């Protein structure tokens, strides 16, 4: 900082210092305790010319192995999907890219309308009545849904399917930590991979909610979700469902089987994988009065201007939020993923309902092709669970060590999937593989051929 100022006109600088009442620039930092003050220079290398710096950076980046070089079959909540160029064209428009929170509706109608349309599409997909304009990601969206259920119902116990994503479970626990709450897992059936309904019956008493995923973490579709809903509601709890938004073009919407709140990962709607993020938390619920005012996050509503002549959009129900309610707000979230939501809107608008269904069907077909070919291999048990699946399924390698198999495949430029054992110790040597529209049949054939070589 002082080096920069040394370049400044010293006369001007001394005038400024005089105005603010100090003798030297160092005095601006006098609140920093002596013992933590940096003395001397930072341990940085000498500056480089721009061209040399660029070369250096590229040489470091060269050490990365990127997705383009590998065949990747990773899912686990973030399946790969193609990102059309149009999405980036729209989101890179500075009007969207640089926009801040639309607190001033009169100058933010474009962004507000885009977010309202996004909310409408989420309602269409999930069958819910109200959607917010996004949360940070799927995991925090679930945690917020559960906190919401706790506020609405007040019981001390929440239920989570044992077959939901491990990262989601961890974040739920984090959000429950300050509360005196019990999180109980509902078992899954070892054969189908679906939720164990009799275990749910036993545990449902006094629970404020149940959270399941559909398809679940093992890729299996919870075909008995209506029955699950009945059990949960009979005991007075709320039914929270985590759904893959693309699967919703093909399978029943959660509203059809009684969900009260729906959450999910919107990053797959045109967001791209991007080394993990940014993500897009989907959050929607039924328009029950006891629920709507407990929703976290920003909600955009449609109204008219004061003259009642034009349609206009604005943030609504703001009295739930931080900037008005402070510590009594429904959540500590004070932002959203607006740009990601605009990207998702673009993606969905581009595909339309027919296109999205086609995409979902292609994904489903690819996964089922892979499953069929793999099921012919005697050395593996695929698909490991008998339950109907959407885009992912588990593959059990019997007595072969999965780490060795993966090593062998990576050497052949294939990343075959996720090892389940670390989060599900009962699933030894079991892999979770994901197949979507981005995988050509030829890619899947290469995968299976390489797999045969590695395990023989």
């Amino acid at each position: 900082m002082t080096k920069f100022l040394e370049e400044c006109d010293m006369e001007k600088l001394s005038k400024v210092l005089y105005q603010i009442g100090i003798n030297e620039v160092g005095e601006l930092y006098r609140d920093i305790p002596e013992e933590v003050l940096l003395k001397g220079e930072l341990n940085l290398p000498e500056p480089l010319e721009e061209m040399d710096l660029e070369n250096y950076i590229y040489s470091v980046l060269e050490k990365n192995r990127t997705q383009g070089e590998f065949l990747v079959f990773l899912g686990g909540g973030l399946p790969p999907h193609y990102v059309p160029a149009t999405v980036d064209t729209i989101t890179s428009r500075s009007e969207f890219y640089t926009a801040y929170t639309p607190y001033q509706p009169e100058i933010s109608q474009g962004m507000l309308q885009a977010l309202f349309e996004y909310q409408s599409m989420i309602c269409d997909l999930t069958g819910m009545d109200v959607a917010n304009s996004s949360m940070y990601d799927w995991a925090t969206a679930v945690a917020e849904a559960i906190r919401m259920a706790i506020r609405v119902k007040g019981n001390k116990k929440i239920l989570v399917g044992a077959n939901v994503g491990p990262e989601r479970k961890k974040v739920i626990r984090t959000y429950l930590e300050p509360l005196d709450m019990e999180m109980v897992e509902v078992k899954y059936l070892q054969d189908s991979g679906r939720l164990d309904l009799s275990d749910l019956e036993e545990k449902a008493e006094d629970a404020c909610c149940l959270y399941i995923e559909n398809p679940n973490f093992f890729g299996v579709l919870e075909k008995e979700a209506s029955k699950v809903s009945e059990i949960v509601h009979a005991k007075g709890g709320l039914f929270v469902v985590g759904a893959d938004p693309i699967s919703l073009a093909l399978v029943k919407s959660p509203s059809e089987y009684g969900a009260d709140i729906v959450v999910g990962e919107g990053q797959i709607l045109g967001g791209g994988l991007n080394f993990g993020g940014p993500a897009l938390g989907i959050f929607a619920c039924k328009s029950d009065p006891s629920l709507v005012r407990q929703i976290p996050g920003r909600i955009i509503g449609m109204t008219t201007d004061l003259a009642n002549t034009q349609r206009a959009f604005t943030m609504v129900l703001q009295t739930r939020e931080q900037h008005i309610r402070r510590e009594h707000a429904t959540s500590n979230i004070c932002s959203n993923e607006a740009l990601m939501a605009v990207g998702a809107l673009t993606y969905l608008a581009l595909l339309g309902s027919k296109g999205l269904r086609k995409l979902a069907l292609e994904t489903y077909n690819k996964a089922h092709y892979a499953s069929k070919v793999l099921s012919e291999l005697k050395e593996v048990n695929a698909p490991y669970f008998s339950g109907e699946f959407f885009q992912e399924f588990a593959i059990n390698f019997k007595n072969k060590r999965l780490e060795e198999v993966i090593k062998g495949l990576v050497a052949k430029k294939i990343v075959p999937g996720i090892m389940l054992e670390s989060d599900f110790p009962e699933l030894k040597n079991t892999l979770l593989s994901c197949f979507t529209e981005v995988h050509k049949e030829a890619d899947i054939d290469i995968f299976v051929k390489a797999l045969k070589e590695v395990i023989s």
Partner: protein
Amino acid sequence: MSSYIVPEDLRYSKDHEWVRIEGSIAIVGITDYAVKSLHDIVYVSLPKIGSTIPKGLVAATVESIKAVSEVYNPISGTVIEVNKDLETSPEKINESPYEAGWLFKLNPTNLKEDIEKLFSSKQYLEYLSSLKK
């Protein structure tokens, strides 16, 4: 001087709540001054029936579009009834803060003492004019 309605037969708190005594029951609401400060009320959150709320604690909240106002219980008591009409028609508070817009009814636990500590209508009017300065 006062453009605010302040019925004579009620008692008032500094936080602009009013109390009407009907036999052994106390009825609580917010004053015309409070309502005019809040503008359009869009939502009311009322206390649980059966809950015992000490004087001075938050008993209800009243929401306009941009603000939330806490309603402090003016006299200690147990809630025996809440105005269910306000669930669907919160605007009743704006239209009729002292009649149709009542908030909740209490079984007072310390009536004589608590009532004495509240303003009479005259005292409340004086209090309101002091606020204007």
